[in-house]
């Protein structure tokens, strides 16, 4: 039967049994009777008029069932892919929101934009036919960079979006910031680029769609982080399928990182096509296809200024950013560089005045949307970089300047000037812990040792906070969210006392089947092995907003906690009846309902049995059965944060940066499963290392070709890039989540890039280097050293 394994334990992950024995069930594992194969024909041009598609040769190709284009979709009056957020400029003018057809109509706007869908008996036949499709393009010049896109005379993506600007967004008190700048003793300035990233989950995207004429129902199996949202957006807004006639299943999904939290055109096309051909259709993206169609992340160009008084106190912070949206607005696109960016610019500091302007810009690139951290790594990078620049310019120690400006523990809850109110935190405590764990005291010895080998060693700090656990619906609604952001859970207690949980979040690597089972095991006193977590199927799970924004435990776990409370409350009523006691006298502890002060008790199993065999049961006042549901809408974000310290070594001869030590002390609130939290930190930090040192999505200006379109050219971080990491938690409890939890899924990615780049700059600061853009590749470092025309290290 197994034991109770509760909060704070680190059992091995339940789901790993099936993953490690090859018994996972991914979309591409699924076969349906009579299944056909679909292939998308994508634009090879960054920008072109679509003059026509000649289907005849493709249709005549062996095994071909149908070829569908944007014209067919228009004839069927299908909707545009919806954007889930509507932002506005300072005057309240809504963003420009041009249609995003699921198959291109009239124009293609990025390499990878979908032009046609070819359905055949086999994948090989579909691919062969796809090559026979004749598409008449009139190629136009592409614009891929944000600086270029807003320049006069730049190619225009949409007739009614002048200068390619979707929205000129701002936040904060511009006048107060200007006043503070006038009084400043020192102003630090920094221009930087936040490099464009491609998520690269291990499993490429895939989908299967099927239509059952007997019931008039559609089923879509898709690699999604939020199947209910796909059902809602696609059913209600794109295909006009009533919700009860559409089932969306996201089975095992091999990693998401944000890439799978959007409603993609492929999902809509394949579902629509399944009914047209009256056969199930499967599509599985190749890795190369993913590069030009999975939504990309980041891609900012930023100018920042920090005003300080003579003691190094921050007076005001001003940030102007151009953010790349790509060719169309993706599901969360415009929300990421605005609402998830500006409000984070306060960081862990008491900066009284902040102003942020973000121009959200269309370009001929893959649409840009959330990627692990989404907006918050960009904000942290700007802030933590400029703090170092200011410290260097003013001759103040980097740790000292942070201390002088940090929000003291006693000052929480702390209202920032940029909307958010931090409920809890102790940045100084995290900093102190990290300084010890990273052995900063002896850094000088290590630096001298590196110097003897001709290497430059540097240390970098990032003291950061982020906002996650998306999201309080009312607050989000004011910022432009077009949907709710609560979560739901159902706790079904079986007559024999085992438990099945139906939850609206989606597990694709985070270990929910383990963490959530621990919560139930602890709260109901049920054996860990007797709890199963069900997710990812709109027919089995009531509703849910899915998994992203470090929300699953914070919002979903809270719903689960509330639902278990309801189970206990009902159990007490049943126990009171069976034990002939007053309900107030019933206690529930360690899986037993007992009468306070007596040894009279009923086990959880006995109560479950009584609920389903209600012979001796208060049927007049209580329904039989033991199943409870809760919806939870958070009252605030949670604000995990911490201190990351990176130590790097630079080889001046080749420009290679090696990460030699990494320390993270994070405040993630209550830790349910320390092993899983550590794993989340590891993965998140490695993705941050990827951004800082290796990853870069590069487009060719003019042609719009993606030059980093495969793993041969897009450098992912690998195991041998990483030192052993020192990970610790220094937690304060969240004051508003039921268990005191904060999110932990993105902190690694948010905190780390600044720590690493700060370390690289530190290593090179004696040569006059003040900033290094990401990724800090060997070529880039070498060029910096060349431009400084510096002597290379001794042999």
């Amino acid at each position: 039967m197994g034991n109770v394994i509760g909060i704070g334990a680190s059992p091995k992950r339940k789901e790993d049994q099936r993953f490690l024995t090859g018994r996972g069930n991914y979309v591409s594992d699924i076969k349906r009777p009579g299944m056909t194969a679909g292939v998308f024909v994508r634009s090879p041009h960054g920008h072109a008029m679509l003059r026509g598609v000649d289907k005849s040769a493709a249709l005549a190709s062996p095994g071909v069932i149908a070829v569908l284009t944007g014209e067919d979709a228009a004839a069927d009056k299908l909707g545009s892919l919806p954007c889930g957020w509507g932002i506005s400029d300072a005057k309240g003018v809504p963003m420009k929101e041009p249609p995003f057809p699921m198959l291109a109509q009239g124009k293609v706007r990025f390499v990878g934009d979908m032009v046609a869908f070819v359905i055949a008996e086999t994948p090989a036949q579909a691919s062969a036919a796809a090559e026979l499709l004749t598409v008449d393009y009139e190629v136009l010049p592409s614009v891929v960079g944000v600086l270029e896109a807003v320049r006069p005379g730049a190619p225009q993506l949409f007739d009614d979006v002048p200068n390619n600007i979707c929205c000129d967004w701002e936040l904060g008190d511009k006048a107060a910031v200007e006043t503070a700048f006038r009084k400043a003793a020192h102003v630090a300035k920094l221009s930087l680029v936040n490099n464009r990233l491609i998520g690269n989950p291990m499993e490429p995207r895939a989908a299967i769609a099927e239509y059952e004429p007997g019931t008039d129902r559609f089923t879509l199996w898709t690699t999604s982080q939020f199947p209910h949202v796909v059902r809602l957006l696609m059913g209600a807004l794109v295909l006009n399928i009533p919700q009860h006639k559409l089932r969306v299943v996201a089975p095992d999904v091999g990693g998401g990182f944000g890439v799978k939290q959007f409603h993609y055109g492929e999902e809509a096309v394949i579902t629509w096509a399944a009914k047209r051909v009256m056969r199930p259709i499967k599509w599985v993206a190749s890795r190369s296809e993913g590069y030009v169609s999975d939504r990309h992340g980041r891609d900012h160009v930023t100018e920042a200024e920090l005003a300080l008084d003579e003691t190094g106190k921050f007076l005001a912070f001003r940030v102007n950013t151009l953010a790349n949206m790509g060719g169309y607005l993706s599901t969360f696109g415009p929300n990421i560089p605005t609402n998830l960016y500006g409000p984070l610019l306060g960081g862990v500091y008491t900066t009284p005045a902040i102003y942020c302007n973000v121009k959200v810009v269309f370009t001929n690139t893959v649409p840009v949307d959330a990627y692990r951290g989404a907006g918050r790594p960009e904000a942290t990078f700007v802030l933590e970089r400029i703090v170092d620049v200011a410290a260097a310019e003013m001759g103040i120690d980097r740790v000292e300047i942070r201390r002088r400006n940090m929000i003291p523990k006693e000052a929480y809850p702390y209202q920032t000037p940029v909307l958010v109110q931090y409920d809890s935190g102790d940045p100084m405590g995290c900093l102190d812990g990290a300084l010890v764990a990273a052995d900063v005291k002896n850094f000088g010895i290590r630096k001298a040792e590196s110097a003897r080998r001709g290497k430059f060693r540097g240390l970098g700090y990032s003291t950061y906070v982020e906002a996650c656990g998306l999201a309080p619906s009312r607050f989000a609604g004011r910022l432009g969210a077009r949907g709710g952001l609560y979560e739901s859970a159902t706790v079904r207690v079986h007559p024999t006392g085992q438990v099945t949980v139906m939850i609206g979040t989606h597990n694709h690597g985070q270990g929910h089947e383990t963490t959530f089972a621990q919560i139930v095991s602890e709260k109901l006193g049920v054996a860990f092995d007797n709890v199963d977590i069900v997710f990812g199927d709109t027919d089995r799970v009531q509703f849910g907003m899915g998994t992203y924004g470090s929300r699953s435990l914070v919002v979903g776990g809270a719903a689960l906690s509330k639902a278990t409370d309801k189970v206990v409350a009902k159990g007490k009523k049943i126990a009171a009846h069976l034990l002939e006691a007053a309900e107030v006298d019933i206690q529930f502890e360690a899986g037993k309902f007992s009468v306070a002060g007596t040894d009279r008790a009923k086990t959880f199993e006995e109560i479950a049995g009584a609920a389903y065999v209600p012979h001796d049961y208060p049927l007049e006042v209580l329904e039989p059965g033991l199943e409870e549901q809760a919806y939870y809408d958070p009252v605030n974000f949670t604000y995990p944060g911490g201190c990351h310290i990176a130590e790097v070594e630079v080889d001046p001869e080749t420009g290679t940066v090696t990460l030699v030590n990494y320390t993270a002390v994070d405040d993630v609130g209550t830790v349910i499963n320390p092993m899983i939290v550590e794993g989340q930190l590891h993965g998140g930090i490695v993705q941050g290392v990827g951004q800082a040192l290796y990853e870069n999505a590069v487009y060719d200006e003019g042609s719009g070709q993606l030059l980093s379109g495969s793993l041969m050219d897009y450098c992912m971080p690998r195991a041998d890039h990483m030192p052993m990491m020192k990970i610790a938690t220094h937690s304060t409890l969240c004051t508003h989540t039921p268990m005191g939890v904060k999110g932990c899924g993105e902190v690694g990615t948010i905190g780390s890039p600044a720590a690493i780049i700060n370390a690289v700059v530190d290593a090179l600061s004696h040569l006059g280097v003040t900033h290094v853009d990401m990724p800090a590749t060997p070529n880039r470092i070498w060029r910096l050293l060349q431009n400084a025309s510096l002597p290379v290290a001794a042999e």
Partner: protein
Amino acid sequence: MKPFAYHQPDQIPHAAKLLTSIEDSKLVAGGMTLIPTLKQRLASPPALIDLSRLGNLKGIADDGATITIGAMTPHVVVAASKLVQARIPGLAALASMIGDPAVRIRGTIGGSVANNDPAADYPAGVLGLGATIVTSTREIAADGFFRGLFETALEPGEIITAIRFPVPLKAGYAKFKAPASRYALVGVFVAKFAEGVRVAVTGAGSGVFRVPPMEEALSQNFDPSAIAAIKIDTDGLTSDIHAEADYRAHLVTVMTKRAVDAALS
């Protein structure tokens, strides 16, 4: 991938005959380069002729002044060979730096040399050591074999059967890995013979090439300091999103120093 016929001959003449008689047919060795191109539909040969049954193409022989490695010998075998480690340690080291374990288990020396990828490692070892490419019909000196960007002296229907390496006094390989692909961004093989030193560079340009000024300097004085000041011209060097030509030129000098260091250690 498009359908193709599959042949597995057990005699070299039979393999050569299939190759010439079936138009556009392709030899397959480890398949590490060929299969991905088929999967991406970049090539669609009507037939593949698998060399794996030709048993005498596998293995390493000590011929005294030379070492002969069969064309179908996988990288992992060369890397782990006690013989190669003892006689030409730089070559064993080179083989150990190719790709990842899976690639080293499948990929072969013959396939790598025939393919002549401008960033592959073996071409540097073959040219640096002045090896001889033994084929089904003749012997070709390394200096005349590599013709730039995926081009070689191989005639249609010709099959590499072995590579014969002269044993040097000293040799070393230094590779600066391209960050993403881990092929050579710049790889330099240095070999010292009684007659002089050879320096072969891969990754930097459109094909493997020798650096005469460095060879001369190292023939005078086989020490890293001898070439530290020799800069190579950026003409003909590759510029791409990973490295610009002047950085590659710089790396040639750095990697040559390191290759000499490796040869001396």
